[in-house]
């Protein structure tokens, strides 16, 4: 089969979606097919541009190239998944979130700040309702994304879990005195919540944060909070780390703190499980809740500094339980049989 993977993104910005597209391409090739990524540039500001880009996608013809038929198209992201094709399958990473669950989110909402925001939001929703069902099959990244698609667009879709990149390289080592918190630094990942929780911990809990800030001001805000709360000796900002360093940080941690707002999926959870580490997440964190079983493979706290502090204190003080939860997480990952083979088999069926 000749397979095109359609995605969209912001030029010069590389994140989980780009890695996923590349991993999918590689997995399709390993399965004996030919695959390429078509990445369309996407600009959400000003909002009036969004409808232009939707139309641009609709006008693309990818049914063949130089007389050679494209057998299958896999759409991943808005608006690239709107590109028409008679044999399109959508594997939805997420819809345009600020037109949906993040519309009025205090930190993540962007469309809501524009006068034309509501009509652009409604146009996106209408197009999704009308055009996503064009696909021969619809899958999503996670049960959380499926639930949102059902809730907002009335469309049913089966979740297809995929493994993190280089899943086989994650390993376990003896736990040292820190929790690991790897993520881009932004309000939705809620590093600030972990910092505020640290200030309330009774145990001498330490956290090592890895990842770059989306905006320098967000990192500066976190650093300022740490200084004001006098947590300098209990927080480390590692910045961007290599893949190997990341795996080492996981392996040596006591556990992983990951309390984002309504995460689509959350590779961090899976990477922690692969590293046999317990995960502390929050009741509104979305995707991680599909994997973290409270008090079995980690702890599910309320999204408050007090509750998160209590969860961190619990694991800090009870290393035996922390180790057991980490092992249970590794076993649960194995039980889920998450593999690229399963993903490719479904998408090319």
């Amino acid at each position, binding site marked *: 089969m000749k397979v095109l993977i359609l995605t969209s993104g912001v030029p010069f910005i590389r994140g989980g979606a780009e890695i996923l597209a590349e991993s999918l391409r590689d997995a399709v090739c390993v399965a004996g097919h030919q695959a390429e990524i078509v990445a369309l540039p996407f600009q959400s500001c000003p909002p009036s541009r969004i409808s232009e880009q939707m139309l641009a996608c609709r*006008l693309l013809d990818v049914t063949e190239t130089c007389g050679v038929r494209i057998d299958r198209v896999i759409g991943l992201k808005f608006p690239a998944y709107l590109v028409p094709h008679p044999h399109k399958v959508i594997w939805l990473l997420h819809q345009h979130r600020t037109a949906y669950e993040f519309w009025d989110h205090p930190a993540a909402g962007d469309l809501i*700040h524009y006068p034309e925001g509501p009509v652009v939001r409604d146009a996106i929703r209408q197009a999704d309702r009308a055009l996503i069902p064009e696909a021969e099959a619809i899958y999503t990244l996670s049960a959380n994304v499926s639930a949102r698609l059902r809730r907002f667009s009335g469309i049913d879709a089966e979740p297809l879990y995929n493994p993190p990149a280089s899943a086989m390289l994650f390993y376990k080592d003896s736990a040292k005195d820190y929790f690991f918190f790897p993520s881009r630094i932004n309000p939705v990942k809620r590093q600030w919540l972990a910092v505020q929780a640290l200030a309330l911990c009774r145990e001498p809990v330490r956290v090592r944060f890895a990842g770059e800030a989306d905006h320098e001001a967000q990192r500066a805000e976190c650093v300022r909070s740490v200084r004001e709360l006098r947590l300098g000796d209990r927080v480390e900002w590692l910045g961007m780390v290599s893949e190997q360093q990341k795996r080492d940080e996981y392996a040596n941690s006591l556990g992983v703190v990951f309390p984002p707002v309504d995460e689509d999926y959350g590779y961090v959870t899976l990477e922690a499980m692969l590293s046999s580490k317990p995960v502390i997440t929050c009741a509104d964190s979305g995707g991680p809740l599909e994997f973290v079983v409270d008090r079995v493979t980690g702890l599910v706290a309320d999204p408050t500094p007090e509750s998160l502090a209590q969860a961190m204190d619990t694991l800090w003080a009870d290393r035996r339980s922390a180790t057991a939860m980490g092992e249970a997480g590794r076993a649960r990952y194995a039980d889920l049989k998450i593999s690229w083979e399963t993903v490719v088999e479904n998408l090319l069926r």
Partner: protein
Amino acid sequence: MKINWFSPLPPARSGIAQNFARQLLPALAGRHDVIAWTDQDQVAPELSQIVRVARYQPNNPPWRKLNEADVSVYNLGNHGLIHGGMWNVSQRHAGIVILHDLCLHDFFAMVLLRILEKPDAYIAALERWYGEDGRRAGEAFRKGGISPECMTQEFPLTGEATRGALGAITHSRRALADLKETLACPVIALEHPYVAADESRHHQWLAARTAAARPPYRLVVFGYLSRNRRLEAVLEALAGIPEREQFRLDVCGELWDEGHIRTQIERLGLGSLVKLSGFLPESLVEQKLSTADLAINLRFPSMGEASGSQLQFWDYGLPTLVTRTGWYASLPEGTAAFVRPEYEIEDIKAHLGAFLANPGAFRAMGERGRQVLKSHDPEKYVNALTGFASLALELSPRIPALELAGRVGSDLAQWLHPAASAYLLERASREIFTMCEGKSHDRNS
């Protein structure tokens, strides 16, 4: 439903503030979560007991706060200073526009030429709706070559007020068909809301009026008195009847040119018969209307829309003289005395004579008008308004779709020969249609 309500509010000297807002807001706020947005310096304190009042700056509206509502409703009339701010918001933030006037040239001339000093925008608006004729007329108007009255009638610019709107509401059923043809958004006609006084109060007014029903009879002219309220013709007619001493005319409202009217009164020798009372506070309105015998409520040219003051006159059981034009022409026969624009002075004189001959017949006319108010229930208005808003919101994806279609068309025109662009336009049209309507385009759609 959460509603942003943009409207002149009491004490603004506007019929929308004094009549419409007072009549409708209690019913609307009783059923929905309403914020009344204003850029006025002052708002009547009692209003905050009915509805939440919030302030905005027309040049920097709080978009996030506005976007928390389900829909924004803009009450647009012809006064540039009163409605300019909310029109500015409506141009960027699509909502439902309630057209309190249908001829809005005066509004756009004031806002675009005098307040914003954007003559290019004024000419562009005329060209958009009336093509080359509109552009030429606009240029001539700017040089003083065409009168405001002529521009108002020939180039009302109604569509410009609803450009990019989710929907439009008129209070004139007569205008509905034309508006549906002209405007790009959905339109409905609703009866202007009015809460009629209860029967016991009405009987008190009636008794007071009947007891005092002898000459001199009290005539009233009410409201914001611009040139189209025909006060000069009323004065001419009054001066022209031999029985003029049997009338007293009370002019209550802001005059567009008080000096000019005073000169006319003096010229016609009406100084002892005509009183200029100015704008009346709410407390004096009841006193004036309950003791008046005949209201003169003329409009020519008509701005097209329903008159809140006409409903108020009917509420008091007052007989009225109205011009047979615009919304007034659709009033049921027998509920008002009609004046033909082309025979204005003659008709006014004839009606005044008829009144003197049979005041009871005119009182019966006022009573029939009062019965019409039953179809103006604010609760019905609120139901219809919110039903219409829900429908308009469902269709809101059409707004960016139309904008997109416009951009695609103008872009292609710049670089692609029409013969070559036909296929692309067809494809783009089909895709835009599918995206915004949620269904595939076919040739019958």
